[in-house]
């Protein structure tokens, strides 16, 4: 039970970070936080129901690594282009 509570807490923190942080790096970190919250719950479930959850967690880690590579690359590119990583400035897609 405490696994899940910890996991929910972490996830909520991640959500809060995504919604409030201005810097792309911190938004990105918050997303990682959410991913790891999910991992934690998966591992927690694995304790009760077998190893499938751990496998899923490994999978998430692999995907997250790839995502980090792409995401950081994007952030570097944006910074080079605009001298800033503030997400609020990135509003070219406004309707």
């Amino acid at each position, binding site marked *: 039970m405490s696994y899940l509570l910890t996991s929910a807490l972490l996830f909520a923190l991640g959500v809060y970070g*995504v*919604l409030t942080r201005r810097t792309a790096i911190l938004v990105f970190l918050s997303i990682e936080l959410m991913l790891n919250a999910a991992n934690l719950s998966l591992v927690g479930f694995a304790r009760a129901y077998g190893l499938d959850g751990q496998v899923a967690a490994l999978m998430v880690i692999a995907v997250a690594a790839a995502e980090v590579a792409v995401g950081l690359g994007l952030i570097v590119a944006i910074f080079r282009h605009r001298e800033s990583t503030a997400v609020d400035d990135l*509003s*070219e897609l406004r309707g």
Partner: protein
Amino acid sequence: MALLGTILLPLLVFALLGLFGKRMREPLPGVLASGLVLASFLLGAGLLLSGGARFQAEWLPGIPFSLLLDNLSGFMLLIVTGVGFLIHVYAIGYMGGDPGYSRFFAYFNLFIAMMLTLVLADSYPVMFIGWEGVGLASFLLIGFWYKRPTAIFANLKAFLVNRVGDFGFLLGICGVVYFAGTLDYAQAFSQVNGISQAVIELIPTFTVFGHTFVAWEVSAVTFIAICLFIGAMGKSAQVPLHVWLPDSMEGPTPISALIHAATMVTAGIFMVARMSPIFELSPTALHFVLFIGATTALFTGLIGIIQNDVKRVVAYSTLSQLGYMTVALGVSAYSAAVFHLMTHAFFKALLFLAAGSVIIGMHHEQDMRKMGGLKKYMPITYWTSLIGTLALVGTPFFSGFYSKDTIIEAAAHAAHGGHWINTYADWAVMLGVFVTSFYSFRLLYLTFHGKERFETHSDESHHAESHEIHGNEAHPAHDNNAHDAHHGHGGLPHESPWVVTVPLILLAIPSIFIGYFTIGPMLFGGFFTGAIEVLPQNDVIKVLGEEFHGPFAFTLHGMQMPAFWLALSGFALATYIYLFNIRVAERAQKIFALPIRILENKYGFDDLWVKGFAGGSIALGGKAWKYIDAGLIDGVMVNGTANLVGRIARGIRGTQTGRLTTYAFAMIVGLIAMLAIATHLFAE
């Protein structure tokens, strides 16, 4: 196959001249065209003498292409190609120097080909091809001088008015297909007896406010016959679809002579004669035909009295004569109608060509008020015109007398104890004789007799020169024609060249003799038996035939009838007024101011069609464009859809802030909402 050849020969000329005409030197297109029309005439004559011919082929599955040359159609073929040949020869001279010389002959031969298709047709679709084809040729030729706005107006008018008639004709054909189930003449005629009981509900029974209106029913045969006749009314210019014919005089004079006097306008008459087995079964339709014909015969003749343009007088005379033919159809004297059609073709073509000759001689003046005394300058034209006029008014021993007198006698016979329409028709044709005689002699006197009213301000050398080149006379219409400017309206009138006068003479001969020699065999000798069917109780020609003892006795008898004396009094009145005492005409103009106004307005038919129907359609179209097209379709439907989408988009574009946090927030809220719903749904 030879039968098909009569049509293909002129069609070949049409194709040749249409494709290569521009490269041909001047008389060649005319000679080629005339030559092949003559060939077509000879071929047709040969086939007729050998006892008729038939051509059959399948055109589309179930739709035959069949041609038939029997006495009726062969006879028409000879008129079309025979008179057509003479007018072609005339046109070689008349059209000389025209920039559209080969185009003229191309159209002209297209007309001949289409007219032959119409005449020789043995099934409805084939006749319809010819019917529309002659309409097209007529349209092209009325607008031959396409730079003249009046010519364009006239050809459009002719085409549109004919379209009204053609629609009726097409409806009639549809009726035949629907009720008889065949497109073939012979089969349709044999089946039409069986459908005499069938009725069509034009308006079905309906109830409004508790009041029941009983259905308006007509018998199928009446419906078919009247629809077909509406087609004939358009083509043969019967009231109220006659308005296009006087305006068609905008075309070159040979066209007026051949198409708008001798042949095409008689297509309607011919068609009704062809369809006689259908018309015979419907007394109502015959009364309708009779009423229209009688009205046309009398009232269009009256308009002719006040016209001042030479060609227009002859045009109204044509209308009136077509009315006579229609009257003959209405009293079931089909062969008399066709007989009058033939004599009329000769003398009316003659009168038109003579009018054309006068126009050439007067250097393109058409107003009779500026003529007079031309007899001295144009003797051949004068004498041939006189013959044409005498034939037209029905002078004994001239061709017109026999055909017209037969029609009058037939109408009189039908009037005995008949319907009121028969009596009306009898009076109309009777009075029409007086009117015909009056306007014909008025035309003759104003043109050829009396004071010379034209202006001459040219020296003799110019005159001589104009004589030399008049072989290449051009018509006025080719605007900025140098020749015309050079000619002006000066110069004394002169006789026309031989290509013009020889056809006049050749037409004058049958105008005199053909009636006397053919009335016996054609009308009373059963020439058309098999082609024209008349019910025994309607057969006025047979009754007249019993009293017929040779053309000479017929002539003597006719001279004792009122029609002859009416013609004579018309002649006398015209002679008195226009030859001896022209003042009377001026005084009459004041006394009869109101009727003359009515006649000048042509009873308002022109206004009705041009301003009423055409103007109304244009106004309706304008309003429809403004409100339905621009307003409803463009405004509401096309642009309206786009506007609606735009407006919705403008409303919701505010949600697209472009800020990452907004989207993330929406995603999370959405996710929570979905999870809440999912847990709620799958709670069990």
